[in-house]
């Protein structure tokens, strides 16, 4: 047993040495966990920020001016005034996500309680913005109308008030969400490619064969790859969490980073094993690349990090339960944002361990089998 551990350790050290000698790879890993995280976190807005809005003001009244002035930074860019005929053109060119059309005599009709019709045009190809933005705009206009009327004598009643508070991310800053989800997606992509390609590379160069005639078992070779590649990624993750996420982006991580690292290890165990399984099906690097693309693209997009899991059809939700990334995404959200402890996230951790072990055993079975067929 001790021998085995020693072998696993030595082979892993070798793996780390190989990584160290590949400056391009080290740079890519470093880059994706620092700059890429920063740029994505600061560049992408899922909350309403900077929405481009234009107003066609056919009324030119006090009320219409008041409404125009109500679209404030940082939620909206300053509204641009347009002519009626321009709406189609600017929306076709995606210049504005929202165009409001205030009809002639709007103020007068409101005051006469004629319920005039105000039109909000929404570019619905921008799914993430359209729904929320439309709701916001509606609220803002309603508020302005109410305010306008409160200055006149028609006072609306508010029978129930509601105080809305958001836990875990009080100002709903999307940079919090995006930075963590980008880390998750980086881990997914890198762990899969790193371990799988390491196997293919050894096979293409014939070094695997060399290892297999020594007193080293395939299991040891694989575990070594798993711990070494995993360690490299974990270090990058820790670096990223402390410097970029907490440091530069000032995200308030409420949970335990140690617990997160433990969960990440389980995830890496599963992902690197998956990479090795895939590598046993590919005969060359291009084939491996083609095999890997569907896996990391699906895991990146359907694990709940890009769009919510609840929105997916039932059968797809069930299928995605088999992907370790689904459990890791919800684990990461629970621990880092909601400060959840082991008592809450243990099911996700158990799921990753279970899936990882199945993948590991599959890899083990296929490993030697593919060695014999290669010639």
């Amino acid at each position, binding site marked *: 047993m001790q021998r085995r551990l020693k072998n696993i350790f030595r082979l892993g050290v070798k793996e780390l040495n190989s990584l160290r000698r590949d400056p391009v790879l080290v740079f890519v890993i470093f880059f994706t966990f620092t700059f890429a995280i920063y740029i994505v976190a600061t*560049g992408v807005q899922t909350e309403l920020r900077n929405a481009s809005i234009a107003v066609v003001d056919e009324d030119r009244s006090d009320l219409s001016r008041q409404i125009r002035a109500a679209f404030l930074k940082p939620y909206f860019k300053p509204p641009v005034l347009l002519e009626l005929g321009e709406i189609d053109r600017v929306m076709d060119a995606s210049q504005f996500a929202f165009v409001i059309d205030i009809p002639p005599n709007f103020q007068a009709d409101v005051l006469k309680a004629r319920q005039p019709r105000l039109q909000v045009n929404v570019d619905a190809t921008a799914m993430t913005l359209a729904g929320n933005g439309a709701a916001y705009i509606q609220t803002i206009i309603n508020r302005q109308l109410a305010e306008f009327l409160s200055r006149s004598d028609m006072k609306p009643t508010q029978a129930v008030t509601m105080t809305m508070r958001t836990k875990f991310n009080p100002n709903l800053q999307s940079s919090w969400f995006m930075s963590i989800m980008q880390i998750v997606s980086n881990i997914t992509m890198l762990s899969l490619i790193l371990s799988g390609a390491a196997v293919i590379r050894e096979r293409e160069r014939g070094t695997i064969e060399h290892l297999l005639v*020594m007193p080293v078992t395939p299991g040891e070779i694989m575990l070594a790859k798993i711990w070494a590649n995993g360690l490299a990624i974990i270090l990058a993750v820790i670096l990223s969490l402390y410097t970029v996420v907490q440091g530069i982006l000032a995200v308030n991580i409420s949970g335990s980073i140690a617990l997160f690292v433990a969960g990440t290890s389980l995830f890496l165990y599963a992902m690197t094993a998956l990479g090795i399984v895939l590598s046993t099906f590919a005969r060359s690097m291009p084939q491996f690349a083609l095999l890997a693309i569907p896996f990391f693209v699906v895991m990146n997009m359907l694990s709940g990090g890009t769009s919510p899991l609840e*929105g997916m059809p039932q059968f797809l939700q069930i299928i995605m339960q088999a992907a370790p990334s689904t459990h890791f995404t919800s684990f990461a959200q629970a621990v880092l944002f909601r400060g959840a402890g082991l008592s809450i996230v243990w099911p996700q951790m158990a799921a990753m361990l279970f899936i990882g072990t199945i993948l590991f055993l599959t890899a083990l079975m296929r490993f030697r089998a593919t060695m014999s067929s290669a010639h």
Partner: protein
Amino acid sequence: MSETLHLVARLTSTSHFYGEVTALDNISIDLPAGRMVGLIGPDGVGKSTLLGLVAGVRKIQSGDVCVLGDNIAGKRHRDEVCAQIAYMPQGLGHNLYPTLTVQENVDFFGRLFGQSSYERALRIDDLLHSTGLSPFRHRPAGKLSGGMKQKLSLCCSLIHDPDLLILDEPTTGVDPLSRRQFWELIDRIRERRPGMSVITATAYMEEAERFDYLIAMDEGKILSTGTPAELKKQTGQKTLEEAFISFLPEAKRAGHEGVVLPPRGTHDGGVAIEASGLTMKFGDFIAVDNVSVEIERGEIFGFLGSNGCGKTTTMKMLTGLLDPSEGTARLFGKPVDANDMETRRRVGYMSQSFSLYGELSVRQNLDLHARLFDIPKRQINGRVGEMIAHFDLGDVADELPGSLPLGVRQRLQLAVAMIHKPEILILDEPTSGVDPIARDQFWRLLIELSRRDGVTIFISTHFINEAERCDRISLMHAGKILAIDRPDELRRSRGAKTLEDAFIGYLEEAVNADAPEQAEPAPKGEALQAKTAAKKPPSRLFDRGRMWAFTRREAMELTRDPIRIIFALLGPIILAIAMANGISFDVEKLDYAVFDQDRSQESQSFLENFSSSRYFELKPPIRVRAELDRRLQSGELKFALVVPPEFGRDLLSGRSPDVGAWFDGAVTFQAETSRGYVQGVLATYLAEFSRRESGGQAIVQLAQIETRFRYNQAFLSVYAISPGVLMLLIYMFSTMLTALGVVREKELGSITNLYASPASKLEFLIGKQLPYIALAIVSFLSLVTLNMVFFGVPVTGSFMALMVGAVLFAIAATSLGLVISSFVSSQLAAIFISAIIVMIPTLNFSGMLYPVSTLEGGGWLIGHSFPALYFQKVTSGVFNKGLGFSSLYTSYLWLMLFCLVFWTMAALFLKKQEA
């Protein structure tokens, strides 16, 4: 200058370095024209470097190299003469394309040199005839034997009637019969074209006897020049090998003596290796056919045969790397078991290809293996030091193996195989490429191990003089053992003078039984020579014919790899189905719970508004405040409502009770949406309430706000997402496949063909790119069909506009792949970089998921620096917005600009010469 007319090349004070290592050390030499010039010397002395410089495939670092009349450093001269030079790089079939057939390989080279189809047909016939490859025309090059590969390589080199033929160790690793045939072939060709100069390098001294003029090299310097007879006379030695050794400086020769094999003393050790009826089948192909041998303990047993005859496969079965199809293998009387660690510890194995870690230094490699073989810690340093001393690795102990000459690397491999003092050594061609002195040293070591320590040695080789040193040898050919016996016994039974003759005798017997094909020069040859000799290939700046040659070849390789095509076409479809179904921002059924502290009729009716909404899903109520926090924390609830005590009373008395709503902010998008929905429900409730209170009198709405979701009336994710998914998939697959294209040739060695051919970088790049563009367009059409037929996302705009955009995008995406490919040096890095460069900017900054109009700063810049954003405008414009050419032409212009920029970058990164 009249002197230079008789020279094919002249090197003046030429030096060449690889980092710290000196490959050529201030060499000045003239190479005579019209002759067969041989470079002799062990591996790693600079022979290959010298040939590379003369061929123009390697960049000159210092000194002058004149080839065919002018300095080859000049690009113009290089372009002019490269059509007159043929270069065959080292390594078996390195410049061949294994999945292409014999004919297709030659045809490709013919096209590169701009020959017409008629001319190619004649020439191919002629060449294949004279090399005896005609019967194998349609066999893939990868399935040829080593000797046939080299003949094919030669055909490819000769297709354009070069004036200068450069052969870098063309016969290394080829069986003696093929070797002999190869040189006879060269002689015949020279007879036909007496003006042709040949420069060749070889490690076999026996071969060098037949050359006109020899250059003996060592350590980057020239030891001596002259005809074989002159060299032998100078030193007074009988053979060239001995002559070469006496040229070496004193220090190197010190300690050199002939290798003597003392007779084996006792034969009491029993059997160490035993194989009976070993057979290995790969599909229909029988690699090893019923091989039985018994090797005694302490015996040196040789395995003589050409590459690909089954030696390696047999050895792999003996080490447990391969499970035999039939028969058994035993080591020390025990069946070979892959899981038996004890046996492995008693065996040392050295595989044919270099299989140590290039990233670890010499010392680290030895250290790692010592540890893996579990040598006690205290002894490790001693053992490693001993090996370094024994194998003369002291000077290079801290270097990386990749930078070392082949011969030194082989020594390192052997050192590694012996580090744990194994009882059996299985060595697969350990000495190929090792210089004669080192080889002798190596053999003395083996003999010592065998005779003193009783180590059993099973060694394969293609050097006849090494076979002579074995206790017994077996001759192997095409998977079968032709004969097993003591070397002198074999010679005697065959009645041959030398072991080589004996072996050739056995081989001829076996080959004739297999295929009685005789190499006959084709009669058409002479006529062709006269007809086409004067023709020169076009050397225009951009030649479509040459580009087409690359395209055809890449396309053929692609079609020979059906797995790649199936994945490239099916992958996007499967992914598109998964994502169009899976990515949905349509938020529904948000889980929530209520902490109702009032439990009045009023609170019930208030809360009913929420539970009846299709957006919300009510979970069991919250009983205590702490439960709220816990359930939000676990992610079970997306939000929770807190109804204050006295809600009903306050409501009725007009005191506006305040309801608390707590949202889980972890997933910001979802929280934002939930807030909007909750607000909406509240507004409905308020309106309803005030209407009830005032008996329908109060003005509920001051104005009607009509929200029009344009381009996607139903506001369904599938309409908005599918066009983006289509874009992403085309992008990802095209870029990654193309990115592997060039770098793969770099890794596998066939890039040399570009270096040595008259083709320009752009011809090569665009030629390689075309098949992938075609693949991308097929994939695009399949995805459009999928969108329209299965997802019901119709093309509302101009289909032609979409098509034009797709073609431009496919070109831009594959060009980006070319840039990556030309820049990186390993396939791994190519996969990595293309995955990252495609995924991160596209998902975040292309407008696929998040609108471009909200981007700021770095994100904005990155989004606009990649083609994805512009094609996203086209797909969403045509699918969702019903647009046509007039609205999209700026996107087209941008995509074209990307193509130009990417091509320029790829051409700049790609080198047309080696360093």
